[in-house]
């Protein structure tokens, strides 16, 4: 006898799986909001793993992750390596300083050599924009852009979004819409926008997730083309930028870029663009302070803000590993 329940088809076995949608994470141009939000949700599960007595799962056993850093960044590299090892992947670490790149070998030749090590995924940082894209065309492996010139730093933007979504939720302001968690939210990004891949990636991601972004800094360092992105505004006025903002992100000032040509002197920069308590009073009552690190103390942000209760700086750092774990999982598991 067949009852009403017979109308129900059997559940899929194994349950809840989907085709892998991306081979690489280079920037967010071909990513949908839903894909990014799924990644942020996966990162929450990864954070649970990191909170347990045994901070490791066997998920990526048998995979090899290679970190290729052609530009120094110990923090980002260690964060990726920890993310790989916490999922039991093997890690190969390549730093340009200790390699034959110094001896004039081309990037392509270097990659060919590294490919003999048979990595499944390459984490690439390079001072020139576009190098990770180029590597993605040359290799059969997956590629994650860990920062290329001034172009993009997608995992930094992901960890910023992850941190801010969690902070807003904890402050009693959870997303109204799952796939557009920043609808009605405004992020102010302050600093040397022109040279900042962090600013670009955050502008791209935050607007993809429904938010508005105000990019603020000395006028000569505000690239006009960014204002063409829907939801992005430019201003040289810090007070205007922070007014009503849900979060204020100060960018790291690179001292070598200070000088008469584009940036004013350090003292002038601090006077006009350092984020101070008075600025936060213009922002939303719950507004958070963010910084991608490493922080130049009392340059980009007043210390009392960076260390204060509104600061998400430490949580941004802590979010790096779970977010990168989610990125590695989502690019490696499943065949496209």
């Amino acid at each position: 006898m067949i009852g009403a329940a017979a109308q129900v088809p059997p559940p899929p076995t194994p349950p809840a799986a989907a085709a892998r949608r991306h081979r690489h994470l280079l920037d967010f141009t071909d990513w949908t909001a839903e894909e990014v939000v799924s990644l942020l949700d996966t990162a929450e599960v990864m954070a649970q793993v990191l909170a347990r007595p045994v901070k490791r799962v066997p998920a990526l056993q048998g995979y090899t992750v290679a970190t290729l850093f052609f530009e120094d960044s110990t923090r980002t590299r260690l964060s990726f390596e920890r993310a790989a090892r916490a999922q039991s992947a093997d890690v190969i670490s390549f730093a340009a300083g200790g390699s034959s790149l110094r001896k004039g070998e081309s990037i392509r030749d270097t990659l060919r050599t590294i490919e003999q090590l048979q990595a499944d995924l390459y984490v690439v940082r390079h001072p020139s924009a576009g190098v990770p894209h180029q590597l993605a065309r040359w290799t059969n492996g997956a590629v994650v852009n860990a920062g290329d010139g001034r172009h993009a730093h997608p995992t930094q933007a992901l960890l910023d979004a992850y941190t801010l979504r969690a902070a807003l939720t904890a402050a009693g302001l959870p997303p109204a819409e799952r796939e557009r968690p920043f609808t009605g939210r405004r992020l102010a990004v302050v600093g040397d926008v022109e040279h900042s891949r962090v600013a670009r990636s955050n502008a791209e991601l935050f607007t993809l997730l429904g938010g508005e972004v105000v990019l603020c800094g000395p006028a000569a360092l505000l690239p006009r083309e960014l204002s063409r992105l829907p939801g992005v505004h430019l201003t040289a006025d810090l007070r205007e930028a922070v007014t009503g903002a849900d979060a204020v992100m100060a960018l790291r000032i690179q001292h070598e870029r200070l000088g008469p040509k584009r940036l004013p002197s350090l003292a002038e920069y601090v006077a006009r663009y350092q984020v101070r308590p008075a600025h936060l009073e213009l922002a939303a009552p719950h507004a958070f302070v963010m910084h991608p690190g490493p922080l130049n103390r009392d340059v980009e942000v007043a210390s009392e803000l960076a260390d204060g209760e509104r600061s998400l700086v430490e949580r941004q750092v802590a979010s790096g590993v779970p977010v990168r774990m989610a990125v590695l999982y989502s690019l490696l598991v499943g065949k496209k």
Partner: protein
Amino acid sequence: MQETENVTLKSTIMSPAEFDRALRRIAHEVIERNKGAGDVALVGIHTRGVPLAERLADLIERFEGTRPPVGKLDITLYRDDLTEISLQPVVKRTEVDFDVHGAKIVLVDDVLYTGRTARAALDAVVDMGRPAAIQFAVMVDRGHRELPIRADYVGKNVPTSRSEIVHVLLQEIDGTDGVELWERHG
């Protein structure tokens, strides 16, 4: 017979009443074997093990007066086939808010088949602490084990062929309780 794509319903193996009796029996067996429910904690394996574990906890509370804690376990990150599968499983939250250390953990799932899910669940629980014991409760044991794993509590043993699908229906998900056997074609 009804057709849904390339699967056909073959038979209903358990009615709602049979399902309920089996669940009550398992609750009694858990209490008997553990000499009460004092140290017992239930951990449901996503997806269908979770409401089953809640149901067992309700029954144990009714019989013993105390409700054992209930956790939810997602075993995705412990699967042994992640390098081979074609689809990417969605990773879900694990919620085990009690101390696993020293507890008698009863893992709960709807169907025991190859044993690979149970193997993954064992590893996942052990990574949370060192339980006094881990036991395993399933509504249906359908055979075809690929690992040396058995269940301590079984609602019903159902001999199946590999082309068949065992569908455990739950009030919370499907609107009714029961167990159905479906045939996969092609």
